[in-house]
């Protein structure tokens, strides 16, 4: 047995160092563990300052001893490689282990052990832990807002139906795959729109905007069958004409009344709220901001200077102002800009404001994708005799959109995270409902539980979305 130099651990005395180091390391962890879980202080006999630092010193010395390169023991090498590369890293690793051990007991006791789950009054919440009873009692309000309890099946049914209709793409056979884009861009949003305006609100189907929407959709569908020679003039004239015909000749006021379904009660949008409102707003803004953003992205790269300047102005304006001022604008300034008898629901106003705001961000993301495409793609498409629209629809956009999937997903994530801001216009989604519930005199003092609950829900939604977008990105990755 050779001399042991404690300042230089080496392979010759491997076992000595290994046992000594592991022992010290183990002691330091045990000390912190007992301290935090059982409130035992092993080193209480030492002066305060030393007793506080002792685990760190012991652990550090222990890790120093077992830091032996190429020891030949697999686990030890892995440990050294991952958490014990040098002194600095060893200290940081120890600190992180200590923090985790220290913070586990209070978190566990607050969340589970001391928390109260049973009952449905405030009286059961006497422990020092969380009061999940509060969440349980207020669950319906957090999910549906002020929507009447008896009518909530309408929201559930609509969401289930929309999810089912949305998943059609997975089951479509190859024969129908080519119509999927049309389905998702035109038909699905329309169905969703009708569901929400017809079923959830129980109101009239035909309101002033729907003429324009119907006219636009009809003309786009017919437009597919128009020879490309006349397409330009067709889109110049037909949508407007269709709108005028629909509004002034076909649908009279009686039809508006007919659109109401007798069995359903009208629930005004002011009563909507909770998590379902978060979904409704995110869904609509997502649908609307994508085409608007795409149009402005194309406009920004247009050859026509006037269109380009207008697009740049639009994009830079919305990107330069905070969403909260945009919502302020939609709440107090927008009504001034409309005719006196013309009333737009505040939910619709909020959706328009958020859509325009997010459209500017989507436009920038898509522009990035358009710019990233090599010039050859444009030139190849043009040399095949494709016009502007054909080139973009069949060659450019499919490739550019693939490139920007992560960017778009980030924008949509930002959109979902921005929805709580609608408290500015007086709509209460889940965070707003929490703030309302917090001030209820019967349930004072449970702010923490509410916010933690909402944070968990949002975290799950956002994390799932970001992981899904990552998968999409991997799936559509094409090597060039």
């Amino acid at each position: 047995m050779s001399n042991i130099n404690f300042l230089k651990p080496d392979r010759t005395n491997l076992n000595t160092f290994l046992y000594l180091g592991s022992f010290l390391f183990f002691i330091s962890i045990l000390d912190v563990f007992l301290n935090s879980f059982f409130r035992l202080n092993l080193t209480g006999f030492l002066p305060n300052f030393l007793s506080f630092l002792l685990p760190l010193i012991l652990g550090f010395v222990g890790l120093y001893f077992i830091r032996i390169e190429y020891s030949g023991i697999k686990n030890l090498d892995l440990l050294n490689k991952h958490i014990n590369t040098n002194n600095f890293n060893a200290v940081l690793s120890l600190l992180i282990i200590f923090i985790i051990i220290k913070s586990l007991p209070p978190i566990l006791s607050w969340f589970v052990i001391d928390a109260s789950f049973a009952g449905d009054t405030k009286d059961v919440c006497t422990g020092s832990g969380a009061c999940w009873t509060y969440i349980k009692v207020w669950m319906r309000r957090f999910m549906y807002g002020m929507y009447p309890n008896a009518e909530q099946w309408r929201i559930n049914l609509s969401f289930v139906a929309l999810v089912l209709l949305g998943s059609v793409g997975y089951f479509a056979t190859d024969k129908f795959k080519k119509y999927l884009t049309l389905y998702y861009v035109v038909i699905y949003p329309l169905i969703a729109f009708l569901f929400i305006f017809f079923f959830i609100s129980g109101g009239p189907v035909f309101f002033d905007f729907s003429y324009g929407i119907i006219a636009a959709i009809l003309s786009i569908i017919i437009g597919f069958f128009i020879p490309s020679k006349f397409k330009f003039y067709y889109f110049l004239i037909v949508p407007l004409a269709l709108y005028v015909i629909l509004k002034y000749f076909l649908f009279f006021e009686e039809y508006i009344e007919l659109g109401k379904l007798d069995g359903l009660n009208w629930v005004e949008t002011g009563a909507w709220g909770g998590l379902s409102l978060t979904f409704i707003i995110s869904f609509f803004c997502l649908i609307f901001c994508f085409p608007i953003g795409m149009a402005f992205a194309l406009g920004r790269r247009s050859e026509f200077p006037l269109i380009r300047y207008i697009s740049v102005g639009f994009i830079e304006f919305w990107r330069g102002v905070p969403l909260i001022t945009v919502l302020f604008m939609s709440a107090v300034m927008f009504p001034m800009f409309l005719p006196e008898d013309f009333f737009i629901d505040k939910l619709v106003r909020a959706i328009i404001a958020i859509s325009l705001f997010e459209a500017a961000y989507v436009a920038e993301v898509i522009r990035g994708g358009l710019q990233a495409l090599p010039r050859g793609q444009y030139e190849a498409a043009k040399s095949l005799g494709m016009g502007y629209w054909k080139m973009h629809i069949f060659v450019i956009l499919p490739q550019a959109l693939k490139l920007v999937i992560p960017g778009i997903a980030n924008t949509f994530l930002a959109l979902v995270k921005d929805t709580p801001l609608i408290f500015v216009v007086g709509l209460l989604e889940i965070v707003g409902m929490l703030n309302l519930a917090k001030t209820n005199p019967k349930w004072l003092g449970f702010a923490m539980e509410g916010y933690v609950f909402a944070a968990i829900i949002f975290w799950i939604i956002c994390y799932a979305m970001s992981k899904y977008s990552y998968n999409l990105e991997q799936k559509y990755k094409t090597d060039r």
Partner: protein
Amino acid sequence: MNFKLKDIVPQLITVLAVVLVFGFFTYNAQINMENRGIDFGYGFLSQESSFDVQFSLIEYDGSHSYFRAYLVGLLNTILVSVIGIIIATILGVIVGIARLSPNYLINKFAAFYVEFFRNIPLLLQIFFWYFAALRALPLPQDAEAMFGVFFLTIKGLYVPAFIWQNFNIFFYSIIAAVIAIIVIRAHAKKVQENQGKQIPVFLISIGLIFILPLLSFLIGGVRLSFEVPVLKQLATTSFIYEGGVSLPPELIALTLSLSLYTATFIAECVRAGIQGVGKGQKEAAASIGLTPNQVLKLVIMPQALRIIIPPTTNQYLNLTKNSSLAAAIAYPDLVLVFAGTALMQTGKAIEIVSITMFTYLTLSISISILMNWYNKKIAIQEK
């Protein structure tokens, strides 16, 4: 002819549509304002505001004008943004580097931090800190002092105030130190290029920035004393700290949540930037005999910064815009003071909202111009 028409018609239609929409809005606005008896104009800015603001950096009370109230709000917004940007940058750079650490625990800890804070809406975080976390702090009379001088209570953070004598001399000494450092750096660079000698610029700089201000204390007659906050009883159960500087809980909650949230994005930018520098660069630099510090300073950082700066600028802009969420917890920023209270009092919706939006636009555009200039300066000069 047909070809030219196709060029002009789309532009004309777009312009016509924009003009029509704007015209429609202005027309309606005029009619609406006439009906409600509101006149358009910015004259109200000089009127007496007659409302009070809790926290302001400049002297302000109800007798000042609306314009002064606007300034108060603007300064508060800038204060929160600047503090937030500084903390977020420091935190973001640390976390971003930690994400690249070979140490498994540090790496995962940083990843956990990033995934946790960026997937929760900012507004929720602000509410959490303000209504849940900071409300759990002790009352002023029960607060324990941190390091003997800081008091963290439910009514805010109390820190000692600096009381300077001859502050301007101290300030000039710092400026002199900065100028001297710049001159020495330029000289050192010249010496190195001409003679190949290296002057320890870093040590000299550190020495200068400490010694010159110290001299100003010894010779220039600068005096610094601290005013420590003292507990004072207002009524039997009501206590308050007097003296020192008090930071309201709104400001703390807002800066905390803004910087924690934005730091996650900055961390990702930093990580992407450092990863974006090819491994070969590092190896090449090491193989010509540069020390690890030099490799980082001369080879990795200049290239990584080029990738890091544009997205980080965007994050700074986002932070500035997100600071408007202050209105939700009643921190008197621009939106709350001006677009909230002032708008309620005057009813001048169009003027006030447009001023607010214009201010934010100016802030964003000026930051982006500054950063574009910097970006251009450090861009690769291709020959």
